[in-house]
């Protein structure tokens, strides 16, 4: 019922507005009887009300406007002339519509208002082809009388009004009677002037205590001077719905939001200033300003905020329709209906949300029979949940259906040529689910039947990306699926972290920030892969990117004292090394010149409290730039290839849960690149890497562990002179120290033995064999010949470059 109320309310507000216009148009029509434009406008308004009331099942309102519409149609088509009489009945109709709307607004239904007399009058005019002419004689008379009696009504009402204003809504009933009362008036259609007169004149006398509602017809019916005054009183009384909400152009709100943004910046500047001046009076004043600015900001943001229910209220019906069409039984739970979102954001999530819900029922929740069979209750549960978290809105769509089977997704991805079987093999189930978001994964209808999931998920992702949001999916086969959208609250003002790098300040949007870590003087947790630093963060290797390098500034001499901002971008994490963290600040992104946008590192610029311009880093772009940048080469690492007493080993995972270790010293770089960089030349895998064709060898394939491919691959790059070879693994696991004694000699092809890393047996890769497999002459460059070219042939690797 809530959803219904919302629609009705909108209808009432809209109709009131339309009626105001209608009044003016009708009055204008009397002086400009021939105006087609006015007539069309009036006709349209009534037509709209009729249509909507029919849709909302307000039958009285519908039949009333239906007759009115007929009359108007004739007027519009020039079949009859506009006369005083016609205008009167039309205005009367408008008033009756108003009464009905009043009742609908107050009670949600049409109440007991009897529209029959007005309908009859309208019909009478409609039926009387000479209606115009007959009436022409009467007006003068009627006018005078009417005006008088109306004036009386008006006076009376305005007296009454002052006492009764508060009780307005409760007084619908007497008002209705008043309209209903002169029932017979409609019959003698031949004498329209008279029939109207007694009806109006009677009221003040017979029912002195009546509510002001009936005065509206009187006042509106003849735009006489004395009546005009009351009309105003009247309006304030009747139209509470229209009063409480006004329509504001979104552009106005946008402009307001921009100004508030400016104010926030000015406030920041003021706060800065006050802190410097150390004047208690100024500090107090600036605190007050700060408070007001914050409230204003919240207020303006609120004008743009709408509860998510605006989108959700259409869901129950949708769920009902889809589930009945598909023969599912679904219970819908909605949590957090009141969670508010910026209007623009709300608009943008509408389609993705619809899509996800449809999908959850279509492919998630099983048929009742299947559910019974697997021991679930017949009725599936679809839960929509919205809540605020860390300045963002999180929306979850959860079903307790069959979940997403990674196997099916894998099969589909292979069939669609998006991934090879080998690539899939090495992927974790969670990674496989992310395949759903790949463009081209599931555009075909067929996918629905086969894979059961993911029609157009890439579109969902694109849309959510577009508003700076993130979408991900978690699923447990057999138990259900959760889609989670993280959406920024608003796009205008955002919290950001300001950091310093080489004495310059930059802003990092808080959305991208996961945590901050300080590097101590022992460099705890820092390791190097090749020359690229990584940080051991709770068992994971976090690649580190120095903002100085990204921005091409002076190299950092020591990592000591630097701060790692752990950032989330494009589904991956990385640590951004900055000199120090300054502050968190509310910033307003200002547009920047195209010349700066095209650099592709900055999302915009903003003004800080001290008035300086600061660039806002585009974190996903920084991450991409860092990937290219990880090519900071220090040649000659391979010189350390020989194994000493203890040496650092790089541990990577390949398929089947196998781990491989290789001497870190022999590794020049580690890269994470999308699988799409791989190409095939003459049956051998290669990739274009640093403008060169680099042979690639898949470790898993080479060792018969299936194959280690995924959407993104870990590339272990070995370089020697101008020769480069890349080894592909599933994931970089760790870097460990290992000593010669710990090694067992148990080995197989391509292996030298094994070591134990954190209680897990880890095979020791014969790196030379692996490298030679890709490029047989890799070591020849240094006269370091390995006679394993036959191996290379076996594997089918060509001579890359």
């Amino acid at each position, binding site marked *: 019922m809530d959803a219904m109320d919302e629609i009705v309310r909108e209808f009432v507000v809209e109709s009131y507005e339309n009626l105001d216009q209608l009044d003016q148009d009708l009055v204008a029509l009397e002086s400009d009887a021939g105006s087609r434009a006015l007539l069309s406008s009036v006709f349209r308004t009534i037509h709209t009300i009729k249509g909507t009331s029919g849709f909302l099942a307000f039958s009285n309102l519908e039949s009333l406007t239906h007759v009115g519409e007929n009359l108007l149609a004739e007027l519009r088509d020039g079949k009859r002339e506009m006369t005083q009489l016609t205008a009167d009945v039309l205005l009367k109709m408008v008033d009756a519509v108003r009464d009905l709307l009043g009742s609908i607004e107050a009670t949600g239904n049409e109440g007991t208002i009897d529209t029959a007399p007005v309908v009859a009058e309208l019909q009478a005019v409609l039926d009387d082809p000479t209606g115009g002419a007959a009436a022409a004689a009467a007006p003068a008379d009627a006018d005078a009388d009417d005006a008088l009696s109306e004036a009386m009504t008006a006076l009376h009402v305005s007296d009454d009004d002052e006492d009764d204003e508060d009780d307005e809504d409760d007084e619908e009933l007497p008002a209705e009677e008043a309209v209903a009362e002169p029932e017979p008036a409609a019959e003698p259609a031949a004498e329209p002037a008279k029939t109207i007169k007694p009806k109006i004149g009677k009221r003040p006398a017979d029912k002195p205590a009546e509510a002001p509602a009936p005065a509206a017809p009187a006042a509106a019916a003849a735009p006489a001077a004395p009546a005009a005054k009351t009309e105003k009183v009247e309006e304030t009384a009747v139209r509470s719905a229209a009063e409480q909400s006004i329509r504001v152009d979104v552009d106005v709100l946008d402009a307001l939001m921009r100004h508030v943004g*400016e104010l926030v*910046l*000015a406030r920041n500047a003021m706060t800065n200033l006050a802190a410097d001046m150390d004047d208690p009076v100024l500090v107090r004043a600036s605190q007050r300003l700060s408070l007001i600015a914050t409230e204003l900001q919240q207020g303006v943001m609120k004008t743009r905020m709408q509860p998510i229910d605006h989108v959700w209220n259409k869901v129950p019906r949708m769920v009902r329709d889809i589930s009945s069409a598909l023969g599912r039984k679904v219970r819908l739970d909605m949590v957090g209906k009141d969670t508010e979102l910026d209007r623009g954001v709300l608009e943008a999530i509408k389609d993705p949300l619809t899509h996800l819900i449809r999908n959850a029922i279509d492919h998630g929740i099983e048929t009742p029979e299947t559910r019974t069979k697997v021991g679930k209750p017949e009725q599936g549960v679809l839960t929509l949940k919205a809540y605020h978290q860390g300045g963002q809105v999180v929306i979850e769509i959860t079903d307790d259906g069959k979940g997403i089977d990674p196997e099916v997704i894998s099969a589909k991805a292979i069939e669609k040529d998006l991934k090879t079987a080998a690539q899939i093999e090495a992927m974790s189930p969670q990674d496989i689910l992310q395949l759903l978001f790949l463009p081209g994964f599931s555009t075909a209808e067929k996918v629905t039947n086969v894979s059961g999931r993911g029609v157009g998920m890439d579109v969902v992702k694109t849309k959510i990306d577009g508003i700076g949001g993130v979408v991900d999916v978690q699923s447990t086969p057999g138990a259900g699926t959760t889609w989670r959208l993280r959406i920024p609250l608003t796009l205008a003002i955002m919290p950001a972290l300001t950091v310093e790098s080489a004495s*310059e*300040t930059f802003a990092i949007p808080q959305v991208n920030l996961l945590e901050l870590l300080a590097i101590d003087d022992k460099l705890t947790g820092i390791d190097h892969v090749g020359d690229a630093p990584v940080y051991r963060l709770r068992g994971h290797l976090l690649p580190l990117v120095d903002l100085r390098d990204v*921005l*091409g*500034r002076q190299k950092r001499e020591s990592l000591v004292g630097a701060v790692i901002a752990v950032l989330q971008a494009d589904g991956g994490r990385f640590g951004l090394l900055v000199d120090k963290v300054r502050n968190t600040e509310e910033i307003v992104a*200002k*547009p*920047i*010149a195209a*010349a*700066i946008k095209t*650099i592709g*590192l*900055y999302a915009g*610029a*903003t*003004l800080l409290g001290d*008035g*300086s*311009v*600061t*660039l806002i880093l585009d974190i996903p772009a920084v991450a991409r730039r860092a990937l290219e940048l990880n090519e900071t080469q220090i040649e000659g690492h391979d010189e350390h290839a020989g194994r000493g007493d203890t040496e650092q080993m790089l541990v990577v995972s390949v398929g089947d849960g196998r781990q491989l270790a290789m001497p870190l010293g022999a590794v020049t770089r580690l890269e994470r690149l999308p699988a799409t960089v791989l190409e095939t030349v003459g049956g051998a895998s290669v990739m274009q890497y640093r403008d060169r064709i680099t042979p690639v060898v898949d470790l898993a394939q080479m060792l018969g562990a299936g194959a280690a491919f995924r959407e993104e691959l870990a590339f272990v790059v070995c370089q020697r002179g101008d020769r480069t070879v890349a080894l592909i693994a599933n994931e970089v696991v760790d870097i460990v120290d290992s000593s010669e004694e710990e090694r067992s000699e148990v080995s197989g092809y391509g292996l030298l033995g094994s070591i134990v890393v954190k209680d897990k047996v880890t095979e020791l890769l014969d790196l030379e064999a692996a490298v030679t497999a890709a490029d047989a002459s890799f070591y020849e460059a240094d006269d370091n010949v390995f006679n394993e070219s036959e191996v290379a042939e076996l594997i089918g690797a060509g001579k890359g470059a």
Partner: protein
Amino acid sequence: MRHQLATFKLDDRLYGVDVARVQEALKIQAHTPVPHAPRTVAGLVNLRGQVVLMVDLRARLGREPYGPDDEPMMMVVNIDGEPISLLVDAVGDVLELDPDTFGPPPPTLEESLQELVTGVYSMEDELLLSLDVDLAAQV
């Protein structure tokens, strides 16, 4: 109708741009350099709450860009409704010029200027190079 040009000096040459396009002239203000920007971009400056691009006109005209010790002037011009700040050596007077004295740029003009100079006004003792301000502000 005489042409009105706002003039400025750069490397001892006199340049002029249509005065209607000039919003204001200011001393250089603290600005934020933009890493990886083309070298013609001197940075971004806060002009009464607006973030304005600063174009190093010396670099734009093929010279050495301004160094940290230089104190150029900012000539704020209007490009498509947006202000852009051009860095010049010194801002001069607004001159009224006879259209008859206007001619094509001399072929002796350096190549780096040919593109941006639309023509030359011959004045008594020197030449005034008329600059295409839209092109000049393009970086």
